[in-house]
């Protein structure tokens, strides 16, 4: 891959600045989550997306509001980009009933029917058959929707990946398979777990068209996702994109991060998605440092407002514990 620092941004201001804003929002949101975890305000598993923001932002910006999204347990960025309010996501992390999943899901299970976000799935690969089914429903009901399935490279080892790719290809279903390859399945490097480390080769085995994209460059992500979405929406069947990216933080807050070199992390940080884009925009005279600081300040304000919202939130009464195990009206 050529040095993205030398590439012109090549997209209009509104999109470029919008994507920059979303990446900064996610970064600030998650940095604050890490603090709050230390303060024991957020508990359970917390998987941070820091470093990988370009993937969710570039890809989701290529979707329409009517498209479906299935995500993983590292999905705060997807939710925020998609338009789930920071308030609702933060309140969910706090376990408050004002959270998007009423505090039943937490960090790993962000759901939002209004923006067609079908979770927040914490079984690796578990969302893939679901995306295939959503796509089947669309095809059978003649809807021109894209079903975007996000998953890590670790999921590629699961049977669910292979079964889903096969079904989607066999039935020509509208699924965009968006693989977020951050090179580590928890602590296991790709090369230590896969006989074939070129993920596109695996997807191609199903006859699915593929593309590799630099997941640290939000513009490259966006272009690849746009092409994938156009292919899928045209009715030509599924498309697979591998976004090569990197998580700066440990797998979760419990992970001592002993399985990779600090130097490797530092090397990837040089390609950080936020300064990658902001530096290029500045070089093109489309962004000033003041504007960048204003974007950052807005993000901080939004996050602080979300923290205040979550703090002020309420606990669902224990009497409601068994609510929504089944649809109430049916009982």
């Amino acid at each position: 891959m050529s040095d993205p620092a030398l590439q012109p941004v090549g997209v209009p201001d509104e999109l470029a600045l919008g994507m920059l804003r979303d990446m900064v929002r996610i970064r600030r949101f998650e940095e604050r989550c890490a603090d709050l975890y230390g303060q024991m305000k957020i508990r359970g598993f917390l998987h941070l997306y820091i470093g990988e923001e370009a993937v969710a932002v570039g890809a989701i910006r290529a979707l329409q509001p009517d498209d479906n999204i299935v995500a993983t347990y590292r999905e705060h960025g997807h939710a925020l980009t998609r338009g789930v309010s920071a308030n609702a996501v933060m309140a969910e992390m706090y376990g408050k009933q004002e959270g998007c999943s009423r505090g039943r899901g937490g960090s790993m299970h962000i759901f939002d029917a209004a923006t067609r976000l079908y979770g927040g799935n914490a079984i690796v690969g578990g969302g893939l058959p679901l995306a295939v089914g959503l796509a089947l429903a669309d095809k059978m009901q003649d809807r021109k929707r894209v079903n975007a399935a996000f998953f890590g490279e670790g999921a590629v080892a699961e049977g669910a990946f292979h079964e889903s790719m096969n079904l989607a290809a066999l039935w020509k279903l509208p699924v965009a398979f968006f693989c977020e390859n951050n090179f580590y399945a928890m602590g296991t490097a790709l090369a230590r777990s896969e006989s074939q480390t070129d993920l596109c080769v695996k997807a191609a085995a199903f006859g699915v068209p593929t593309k590799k994209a630099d997941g640290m460059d939000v513009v490259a992500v966006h272009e690849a996702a746009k092409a994938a979405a156009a292919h899928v929406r045209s009715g030509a069947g599924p498309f697979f994109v591998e976004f090569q990216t990197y998580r700066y933080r440990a797998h979760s807050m419990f992970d001592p991060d002993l399985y990779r070199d600090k130097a490797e992390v530092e090397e990837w940080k040089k390609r950080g998605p936020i300064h990658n884009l902001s530096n290029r925009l500045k070089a093109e005279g489309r962004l000033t440092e003041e504007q960048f600081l204003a974007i950052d300040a807005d993000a901080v304000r939004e996050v602080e407002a979300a923290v205040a919202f979550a703090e002020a939130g309420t606990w669902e009464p224990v009497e409601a514990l068994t609510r929504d195990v089944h649809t109430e009206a049916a009982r």
Partner: protein
Amino acid sequence: MKMTYREAIRQGLHDALAADPRVFLMGEDVGKYGGSYAVSKGFLDEFGPERIRDTPLSELGFVGAGIGAALGGMRPIVEVMTVNFSLLALDQIVNTAALYRHMSGGQFSVPVVIRMATGAGRQLAAQHSHSLENWYAHVPGITVLAPATIDDARGMLKPALADPDPVVIFEHALLYNFEGELTDTARDVDIRSAKVLRAGNDITLIAYGGTVWKAQEAAKELAAERIDAEVLDLRVLRPLDDATIMASVRRTRRAIVVDEGWRTGSLAAEVMARITEQAFYDLDAPPARVCSEEVPIPYAKHLEDAALPQVPKIVAAVRRLLGKG
């Protein structure tokens, strides 16, 4: 009208497909082959390959796809060839279908129906003969049905499809050729209650699926000894209909659960625990059970027979409980 259990299931499916364009049938060999138990023979020609959808041998994938399609507004009926194979799809059923509504704070319901054959008795050996209904009945968020009668085979699918949440239906493989009477009530069977199939005063035999007919047979033999057994068909394995069970047991004051599952951790154990919790002081004897022996179901006929609940075992258990052994 007399018909086979197979025909009753088939008519139920046919009605559902004809009534609602959102309904489709998906599974291994449901189309060209006509269904591994021949329940969907002719459907492919009638409803076409979109709605009678043959799948690859990919249980996790196609059951998950059924769940996704349900989320997407369809009403899929997913057929899994046997409960043994359903373990390959257990993740999608337990970790997705059963949880999605609660985990999403009530935002997403999964109106999928998953049908599968269960049970032994055809010398199919250990990997095709188990009864794991209790595994599913353990899980909150799904409704578990076990049609034993022709009426239920015919009628349970409709309310199952109308349920906004996941429903798993177990069809006992030995029953497909079973012939019985279809009554007028088949059109409006519920999926909430247990049912007394034979009234009696001395003891309640509680059974489901394939063991219902063994319990009935045992009750007939016992009648010759002037032991008047009531036979209660659980029908719904989750949620259990405690009220009907307790009403019967309080009257007969004795209960034996007949369950083709293994004894340890069985559905029988759950039913007995509930009877003990709720009707202990009305009992004249401790609740008992006749379950499968704790072995993988063997191939050889005499061994398979010995592993399963059989009429003589039920009769002997009743005699013991009544102090007539």
